């Protein structure tokens, strides 16, 4: 029966008349824009029905706003070790809502600043990882033959590498900086994406419209850019959102192991310092709890968004709601 197809037509069924009215002079470009606008609107309409995804998105927007506005909210010298405003390891008070660290800095201020590094490293590492994975996945899926065999062999071998250990090793042997962390996460997490994208590419390439495009005279570039890429993009988008949350967790882990950039404040780094200053044995939960909670909230928010995106764009994956 046609139950699965019964939802979209009523919405789009009403759109074509205005579209033809909007493009009477025969511009193919305006048609393209019209089409994009309606598909974004449709995406949003469907996304809105995923309550968890909306919560995730709301949380992300809030955290992103805080990260951007951190200097305005708590001043730009929060990270400064010299001339810190408080005494070492103060308990929460009205002046320091979360107390102070061993240098007397406001933990609340540090927490807000930590959002910046956590988000930016997460985004950059996920972007790097997804870019590598998508490129390799599409190329291996499209070209096949010995090329694919070699590439997928390499991917498999990266996949069996314990990613966290590899990231730790990279962060150990390279100089300590934010970029090292981004690189370490990026180059260890791409194989999953590559596998997924390759599988999707193979699925797309087995569809008859690829053969039709070949018969129309389309070359490799045409097929990869016009057919494969648009069809793997939903997967890639969902994968990116999910990868960001795992990248944020890995970043926190590396920082907790003392492998982060020592010059910036991050949530993982705060946890490490909390542990080293004996917050655990003295029961200073206010030092320990907030950064971890922040990590969990951001990671969860990205995961929820990713799952919502996934179920909107790829309803057959069975993760809906």
């Amino acid at each position: 029966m046609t139950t699965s197809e019964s939802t979209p037509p009523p919405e789009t069924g009403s759109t074509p008349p205005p579209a033809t009215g909007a493009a009477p002079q025969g511009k193919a470009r305006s048609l393209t824009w019209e089409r994009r606008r309606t598909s974004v609107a449709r995406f949003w309409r469907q996304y809105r029905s995923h309550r968890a995804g909306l919560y995730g998105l709301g949380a992300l927007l809030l955290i992103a706003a805080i990260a951007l506005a951190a200097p305005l909210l708590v001043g730009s010298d929060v990270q400064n070790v010299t001339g810190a405003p408080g005494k070492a390891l103060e308990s929460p008070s009205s002046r320091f809502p979360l107390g102070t660290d061993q240098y007397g800095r406001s933990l609340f201020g540090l927490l807000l600043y930590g959002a910046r590094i956590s988000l930016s490293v997460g985004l950059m590492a996920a972007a790097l990882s997804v870019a590598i994975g998508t490129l390799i996945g599409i190329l291996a899926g499209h070209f096949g033959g010995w090329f694919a065999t070699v590439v997928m062999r390499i991917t498999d071998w990266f996949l069996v590498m314990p990613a966290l250990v590899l990231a730790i090793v990279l962060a150990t042997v390279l100089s300590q900086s934010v970029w090292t962390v981004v690189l370490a996460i990026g180059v260890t997490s791409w194989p999953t994406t590559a596998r997924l994208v390759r599988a999707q590419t193979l699925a797309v390439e087995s569809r008859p419209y690829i053969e039709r495009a070949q018969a129309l005279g389309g070359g490799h570039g045409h097929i990869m850019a016009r057919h494969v890429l648009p069809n793997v993009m939903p997967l890639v988008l969902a994968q990116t959102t999910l990868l960001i949350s795992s990248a944020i967790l890995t970043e926190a882990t590396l920082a907790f192991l003392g492998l982060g950039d020592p010059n910036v404040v991050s949530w993982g780094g705060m946890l490490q310092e909390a542990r080293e200053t004996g917050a655990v044995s003295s029961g200073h939960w206010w030092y320990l709890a907030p950064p971890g909670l922040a990590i969990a909230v951001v990671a969860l928010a990205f995961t929820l968004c990713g799952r919502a995106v996934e179920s909107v764009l790829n309803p057959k994956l069975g993760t809906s709601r």
Partner: protein
Amino acid sequence: MTTAEAPATSPLLASRALHVTFPGRRGAPPAQAVDGVDLELAPGEIVALVGESGCGKTTLARTLLGLVRPTSGEVSFGGETLDYRARALKAYRKRVQLVLQDPSGSLNPRHTVYDAVAEGLRIHGHPGDERAAVAEALSRAGLRPPERFFLRYPHELSGGQRQRVVIAGALVLGPELIVADEPVASLDASVRGEILALLLKLRDELGLSALVVTHDLGLAWNIADRVAVMYLGRIVESGPVEDVLTHPQHPYTQALLSVLPEADGEPVVLSGEPPDPSRIPSGCRFHARCQVLASGRAEEAGVADKCRTEPLPVLPAHADGPQVACHWAAARRVPRPGGPQE
């Protein structure tokens, strides 16, 4: 009839001793999907290529389109041998178009109807008004008014409409030949006739030739001028539709026709599965399943040994009357002086 005038004009599409072999998987012997095919298609002619799945008809169609490279033999179009270099192949693909079985699969779900039809124009760089060309192709394919369909996505269309979009996408480049692989097999019965009528109309209006690959003999009766019956990589019988479908000579064609629900007489149901192209029997490739050989009629005609041991020649590409690759049919024909051949 188109067939009568065909020999006068030079063929549009022709294949000579075409062979396509696929390497066997995991040590299996190689599969000879196409094992020697001579086929010609005159301008404006509709030829139906009929056979069971696995007989190589789809591979043959793909090879004629240049999507598969033949192991040996050649394909020629408009008198010129097909050139497999990228540029020449691209030019060829402007002149020959493919229509596939499953219209929902042959349209990219993320492309609008407009994009799907304009795709060929974009690949080949259309100098004129793209929008007008797309609109014209859509209305030729029976989607009117075309503007109403521009922004639709494939999932918003019915099966018949999708197949019309695919046909419009082929028409937009102004081809000379359409290769249609089971064009109506996945459409509803009531829609089927409309799509076939469209193919006939395009032939009448545009002089378009068509090679229709199908398992459906009724389809050949509906639209084709000539029919070629394929078995295990070879054409075993070919000729004008009226001759082949009403007076089949080859036991295989006879069997295919006899199992149709409306056929008169006792159906001849061949046992077993359609055989495997990696193990083509010696002698006549059909002999292992042949009802004429099994019933002893071939023995009576004195050709039973020949059937088992002597391979048959490749049928000529084009002739006035029906052609059949069968020892038994040949033996029966000799005593009849008024036969169409020899």
